[in-house]
């Protein structure tokens, strides 16, 4: 159905203006990614001479060749990110569902206490310093994969979303009839409630996946060895290291006097690293965003 002249819709001319606007806006969203891709596929000397362009002036894959010569760290970091994302998301969804379900049961005594227990954490926190000390001194988790997983396991907001779904979409009568048929509470939860709750489980899983995949903060404060560096943090380090090398001529001359390589394709290498890092999320995006929009919509309507 195209725009018509009925007063329910905007006029044809306004419709065209709206389209033009959104095409412009869409370009604004996509072009930065194209710029990065184009730089990564350019020849370093042309880039230095003429600056970044949206279409490579001289095509070259040398940045990628350079990057793939030393692939161990990249593969390692990919592994860390994938592991943390998968394990983190699975535990996170399980933990959230286990907490949200009893909260949704209006017949459960003292559930107000447990609701307060989690929602109070939205109001007040101890701040970075004590929190950091708990993980580093008390639990001794510095430089482990667990420190990248644990802090993001449970978010009060996800619990809120799930509780709302359980209490508004799972009829009490289904639970009653399961009880009559002799199913225990946990069995009812796993066999009946969870299968009926796939939309909200998927929504929380998607948000959680995104949180884990994009996290660099936990790596930045808790990780100091290269073994447990996540992909995002590796990208951060690459950016900073090259910035540091190029802005600090002392370091640069030291490296070259020791026979190191200074003619590394800085700028294109940097952007090639960005492409390698962005890659998975952009490739998964079309699949991801459909469910994401659905999830957001459910959340917004349900409140």
């Amino acid at each position, binding site marked *: 159905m195209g725009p018509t002249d009925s007063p329910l819709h905007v006029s044809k001319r306004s419709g065209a203006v709206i389209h033009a606007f959104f095409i412009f*806006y869409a370009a604004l969203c996509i072009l930065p990614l194209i710029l990065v891709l184009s730089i990564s596929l350019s020849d370093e000397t042309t880039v230095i001479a003429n600056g970044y362009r949206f279409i490579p002036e001289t095509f070259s894959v040398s940045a990628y060749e350079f990057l793939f010569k030393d692939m161990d760290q990249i593969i390692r970091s990919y592994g860390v990110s994938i592991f943390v994302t998968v394990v983190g998301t699975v535990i996170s969804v399980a933990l959230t569902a286990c907490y949200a379900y009893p909260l949704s049961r209006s017949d459960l005594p003292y559930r107000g206490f447990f609701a307060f227990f989690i929602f109070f954490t939205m109001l007040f926190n101890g*701040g970075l310093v004590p929190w950091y000390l708990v993980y580093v001194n008390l639990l001794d988790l510095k430089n482990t994969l667990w420190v990248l997983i644990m802090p993001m396991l449970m978010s009060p907001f996800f619990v809120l979303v799930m509780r709302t779904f359980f209490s508004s979409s799972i009829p009490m009568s289904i639970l009653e009839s399961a009880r009559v048929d002799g199913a225990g509470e946990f069995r009812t939860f796993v066999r009946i409630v969870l299968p009926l709750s796939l939309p909200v489980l998927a929504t929380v899983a998607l948000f959680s996946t995104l949180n884990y995949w994009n996290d660099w903060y936990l790596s930045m404060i808790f990780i100091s060895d290269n073994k447990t560096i996540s992909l995002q943090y590796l990208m*951060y380090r690459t*950016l900073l290291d090259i910035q540091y090398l190029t802005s600090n001529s002392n370091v640069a001359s030291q490296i070259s006097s020791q026979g190191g390589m200074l003619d590394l394709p800085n700028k294109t290498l940097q952007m090639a690293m960005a492409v390698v890092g962005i890659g998975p999320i952009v490739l998964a995006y079309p699949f991801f965003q459909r469910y994401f929009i659905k999830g957001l919509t459910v959340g*917004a309507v349900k409140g």
Partner: protein
Amino acid sequence: MPKPIKKKKTMLYNLGKYKVLYLMFLPGVVFLLINNYLPMFGVIIAFKNVNYTDGILGSPWAGLENFKYLFGTSDAWEITRNTLAYNVVFILLNLVLGAGLAILLSEVKGRFTSKFYQSVMLLPYFLSMIVISYLVLAFLGKDSGFMNTSFLPFFGKEPIDWYSEPEYWPYILPFVNTWKNIGYYVVIYLAAVIGISEEYYEAAILDGASKWNQVRFITVPFLYPLMIVMTLLQIGRIFYADFGLFYQVPLESGALFPVTNVLDTYVYRTFLIGGDIGMSSAAGLYQAVVGFALVLLSNSIVRRINKDNALF
């Protein structure tokens, strides 16, 4: 739905009857105790003069020394001002552009095009702040960034050393923040716009309302509750800043600190880079306490407007 059992039962009876449900709380409770409640006791660090030989509990009390020192510097004012001012700008942009773009998008009638625009607008929301910092660098890099080598010369302007000129960042940061997050708000507002029954519009058309008047007198009023809730949720977090935006995107450039330093980056820098436990704890507690007050305030306002939307 059947009413909860009215008859008074003993606590032991309840615990026995619902033991499975209470056991389900257990993993979450343990997690919250470690991750959230234990650190709350750590706020005493802000009142201590921590040294490593005595440990945290053994270190001598410092009273309000850490706070006096913090508020005695110009930092306290600067970080408070930056945190609040940026967040106010972000909230306004999210509100106006989020609702505005959603209304515009609802006028795109082609299903495919509408979905396409939605998807593309949501794309930046999926990117991490590290990726965003790369994208910004590609545009603002000093020697080869697109702005300096293509855009500014085209208009006959001199190149700008973006990462050492603080005056531009109060515009760059809101731009980047909006660019990254607006898709999220648009999708939420769009769901609400689409949810408005067509009958209202049809009735308005019978009364001769123009498209503009329909938006003004039907769409926007229907969006008010959601707009208010979304805004108050952000006001509750107004004392917290997006660490990534203020730390990663300016590439930690020291020249930009006067306009990029916020409470979160300040606490991080004084603690993990500067090693000053006392001061950063004091700043952290200041942030937590004022943040607490603001959440309570905004929640009580939400409650007054619409009880269902209040968090507690």
